[in-house]
Structure formats: structure tokens, C-alpha cells
């Protein structure tokens, strides 16, 4: 079975899907925060995608399609349901978070270690963590993120903005804590 992917290449499911394996696993681990659960999630994603490959529409974005399956699968797990319940997904267009007590970021970043960034990402709500990972790590366009998360591009922009603001706020509080 072969399809045309958005870049114009043709390939079997394996040829298209396996190059995404490491990225999908990293994303799954960030979502689940657990190696065994991440492996279950990735394996289930690949099996679902393989079964649904015949319905995959030619000319659409294969990467976004795979990430969407992974994320939808995650949302049906216990951890995913818990993540959904802890924060309403409809609150994107509400007023943004209170303004930050920001220190100059150049000073902040000079002190921030890799571990602090990772810890901060872990502490973010899942819907903030995933959109930052899709944008900053996977370098997806807003349109791809919209396709992956199943939300309008305008919501991608507002959610990403709130996610980054929350991240900066958490980093700032960590720095203040470290200086006390």
C-alpha cells in the first residue's frame, strides 16, 4: 500500500511512519511521564494508524495525522482523562492569565539550567505542555498544530501564547525560589 504524502513522496506505511518513531515516543513520554505508558501509547498509535492507513487522505499532512492519533489515544487513557478533567479545554478564549511578575529574561535564562526547563515543562498542564512541544520542539506550523489538536488556528495562537506565559511565570517563580 502506498500513498502520496504532503511533501510529494510516496511510501508504504512503514516508510512514512518509522522516521517519526523517536519524535512520537518523546512526545508520548512527555504526555504520560512514564516509560511503560509511553511505550503502550506509541504501540497503540502505530497499530491504529496501520489499521486506518487505507482511510488516510492523500495530500494531507501525515505527521499531523500520526500526532493526532497519538494524542486522541492518550486522551482515552486514564492519565489523559485526568489531564482533561483538571483543566477545561474550552477556556482558551477567556481573559489571559494575570500579568507576569517578570524579571528580565536575559538574566533569567542565564541562570536556568536544562533540568529547570524540563521540570517546568513537567509541571505545566498537559494542554500547555503539548502545544509548546509541537511548536518549539517539533517546529510545526500553526496550521499543522491546528490539524493535530483539532482546534482553529486562532485558538492555537491564543493557547500557545498562554502556555508560554505560564511557562515564563513558572520559570520566574523557580528563580525567585532559588534566590531566597
Amino acid at each position, binding site marked *: 500500500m502506498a500513498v502520496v504524502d504532503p511533501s510529494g513522496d510516496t511510501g508504504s506505511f512503514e516508510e512514512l511512519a518509522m522516521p517519526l518513531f523517536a519524535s512520537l515516543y*518523546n512526545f508520548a513520554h512527555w504526555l504520560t511521564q512514564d516509560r511503560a505508558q509511553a511505550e503502550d501509547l506509541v504501540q497503540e498509535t502505530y497499530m491504529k494508524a496501520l489499521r486506518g492507513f487505507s482511510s488516510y487522505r492523500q495530500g494531507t499532512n501525515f505527521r499531523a495525522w500520526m500526532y493526532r492519533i497519538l494524542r486522541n489515544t492518550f486522551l482515552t487513557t486514564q492519565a489523559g482523562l485526568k489531564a482533561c478533567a483538571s483543566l477545561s479545554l474550552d477556556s482558551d478564549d477567556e481573559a489571559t492569565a494575570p500579568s507576569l511578575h517578570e524579571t528580565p529574561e*536575559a538574566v533569567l*535564562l542565564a541562570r536556568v*539550567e536544562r533540568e529547570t526547563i524540563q521540570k517546568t515543562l513537567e509541571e505545566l498542564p498537559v494542554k500547555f505542555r503539548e502545544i509548546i512541544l509541537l*511548536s518549539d520542539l517539533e517546529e510545526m506550523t*500553526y496550521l499543522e498544530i491546528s490539524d493535530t489538536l483539532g482546534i482553529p488556528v486562532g485558538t492555537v495562537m491564543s493557547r500557545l*501564547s498562554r502556555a508560554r506565559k505560564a511557562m515564563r511565570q513558572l*520559570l520566574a517563580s523557580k528563580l525567585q525560589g532559588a534566590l531566597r
Partner: protein
Amino acid sequence: MTCELWRDKLDAYLDSECSPEELAGLEEHLRACSACASEALGRVRLKRVTQAAAMRYSPSREFRLRVKKAIQPKRRPIWAVARMPEVAAVGLGVILLALGLTLWVRHAARERALAELVDLHVATLASANPVDVVSSDRHTVKPWFQGKLPFTFNLPDLQNSAYKLIGGRVTYFEHSPGAQLIFQIRSHQLSVFIFQDRPEMAPVSVGVTVSRELAFNTEIWSEAGLRYVVIGDASPPDVHELGELMRNAR
């Protein structure tokens, strides 16, 4: 437009999602407003740091192979095919593909592992406190790791060499603790990483492997159940000489 409104556009700016008109307007504002320019720089740096920090988890080779096997199409039994030359050609093709994939997987895993170690090296040197034990005395640095690592290692006597031991710290790579030692030669600082050589770790060739990764020179070898990696911006002979000193340490 106020600074607050311009700052609302900074996320789209750093994601390259601004329209040409917005981009022109924003860049003009950033040239004139140092506060917003500083904010933009901070956000760009945060995005870069996040990108590096977020590439954190790697699947094991066993898991990758398990999934790969599960998604491979079931092949027809060989006796169901009448024309044996075609069978042979297909068989050869499959073997070559598998060999190619295996080599590619090994190469990709090695590149990823080296890139991660280079990141660790750079992050350590950029840190305000690069080492947890600060001493040029190997008899101080080595005992410091006792109880912190599930293995031990030897450090070289550097009295008659151009290298100086700066200190060491415990680090983590592929979920396992290891030692990171910082050495100095002239104005260059080099890291020597030491980890347990586990089968699931990214593969390296047997013996000493010398390569360049992101313009850093590296040398890798395995010995007595431990994996050693030397990384630095010093010349290849300098990196190799430090590797030799470590290999001859008693």
C-alpha cells in the same frame, strides 16, 4: 500601537507566522524600542533552550524493533511463489533493506547520543557552577564519586602533561547516572563522560572511535564494562591525547 500590542505579536514573530506587513511593522518597532527588543530576544532564547531540553526521551532499540515488526506486512509463504529467481531477488532486497535499516538505526542512535552529550558538555560549561567537586587532585575527585555512582574508574596522573583536572559532577544520560569530568588544556575545556556500558545504550564501534559532532571533536571507547566519551573544542590530537591518558590511568 503600544508596546503591549506589539508584544502580543511576539509569539507569532518567533514562530515565523507573522504576515509580511506585521513583520515589517514589528521589526521597525523592535529597532526603536529596546525594551521590546530585549523581550523578543528573551523569548527567542527561551524557545531555543526549550527545544534542546525537550528532546529528552529516546525509545529503546528493542521497543523500536518490536513496533517495526508489528507493522510490517505479512509476507506470503515462499512456496506460494512460482518463480524462484524473483523470490531470490526479493529476498536479497529484503536482506539489504533490513541491513540498511539496521545500519541507519545504529547511525541515527549514535548521532543522537553524541548530540545529547555535546549538549551536556555545552550546558555544563555555560553553567555558573560547572562542577560539584572542584579540585585538580585526582585523589580528591575520584573518592567524591563514591556512593554516588554504581561503578568506579581511574583518573590519570597529569603531573607531566599539559592537562589540568578542573573537577567533576554526576550527570545523567539515557536514564543512568554517570561521571562528567572537566579537564583543561591551554584555554580549552574538555569533558570526559563515563557511563556503564549497557546493551541498550546507543551503539559505538568496537575500539576507539574518533569523530566530529557539531564541530566538536569526540573520542569514544568501551573498556571494562564502562563507556568513555571525550568531547571538546580542542584539536583532534589534544582530544586523542586525553583519551590516551584516561586509557592508561592506573
